[in-house]
């Protein structure tokens, strides 16, 4: 596949959650296993008159991919008839580059009180990416008991800016002043 890096970045554009990264890792593992299978090796061996069989086989196999963007790209290539891209020699480097690109992402653990829209989560990620050399994804947990705010673990830094913690601190300060 040509322009691997540009293609990979296009596939990864808009990824903002660690679960999405994990999903793509799983898809890469799935595709690698598929390519290593004897069935795949047998079907993808270039023999005339087998193109239809290859197309049908690949159509079915690509259905097992979870990441929509990756699946869409591969299905588009298949529709174009670019069967060469599915040979081991072509697809393996692509998958390897994709995997390497995934390792660049930095996961930031964040606990929030409500479900946010994907667009808002992407805006929040951009705040972190302003000064970060690496792309960032959220390892997101929704915990309504936080009431509001967030608990964030970014590298070695942890901050608890949840309303629950602030109210507990307020309560402790009050108790301390009452005891006095």
């Amino acid at each position: 596949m040509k322009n691997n890096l540009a293609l990979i970045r296009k596939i990864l554009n808009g990824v903002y959650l660690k679960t999405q990264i994990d999903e793509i890792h799983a898809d890469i593992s799935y595709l690698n296993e598929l390519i290593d299978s004897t069935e795949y090796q047998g079907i993808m061996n270039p023999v005339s008159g087998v193109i239809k069989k290859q197309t049908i086989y690949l159509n079915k196999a690509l259905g097992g991919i979870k990441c929509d963007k990756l699946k869409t790209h591969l299905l588009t290539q298949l529709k174009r008839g670019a069967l060469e891209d599915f040979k081991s020699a072509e697809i393996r480097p692509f998958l390897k580059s994709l995997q390497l690109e995934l390792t660049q992402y930095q996961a930031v653990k964040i606990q929030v009180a409500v479900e946010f829209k994907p667009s808002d989560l992407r805006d929040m990620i951009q705040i972190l990416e302003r000064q970060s050399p690496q792309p960032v994804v959220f390892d997101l947990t929704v915990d309504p008991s936080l009431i509001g705010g967030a608990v964030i673990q970014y590298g070695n830094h942890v901050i608890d800016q949840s309303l629950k913690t602030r109210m507990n601190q307020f309560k402790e300060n009050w108790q301390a002043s009452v005891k006095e």
Partner: protein
Amino acid sequence: MRDILFFAIGASIVGTIFLVSIIELIFTIRRRKIMAELNTKMVEMKEQYGQTITSITETEKELEKKEAKKIKDLRTKLDEEKTAFEKEYEEKLKDITTKNLRSVNSAKALASRMKKEAELEAGEYLAKRKKEVEQELMNLVISVSKKVLPEGISYDAQKELVKRALEEIQEKK
């Protein structure tokens, strides 16, 4: 014959009279003798009786004296004992009175101390209860706030809170 008879009768009568007179005389003498003896005995007995009476009287008198002395001694002893008892009674009474006074005074002091302690405890209890009430009030406020706040905070406000937290961690980095 008549004369002899009359002489015999007369002689017998005389003789009888004479005999009787002799006998009477004898008996009279004897009676007098006996009477004298009796009188003597009577006198002796009277004397003895008198002596006896005298000795009895003296013995009685001595006994009376002894008894009177005994009684006097007993009275004296009783009086002494009475005085001693009265003295002991007064001392004990005084002692008890003093002890009672001390007990009363110490009871008063104890009551006063207990009153002060009770006042102090009441004050402490009040302060403690006040703190507990304030604590409970705070817990209530916090729990109500925790229940009410999530609904009171809008989506945009939630978004803003998270963004502020992200800005803060960005600054720390």
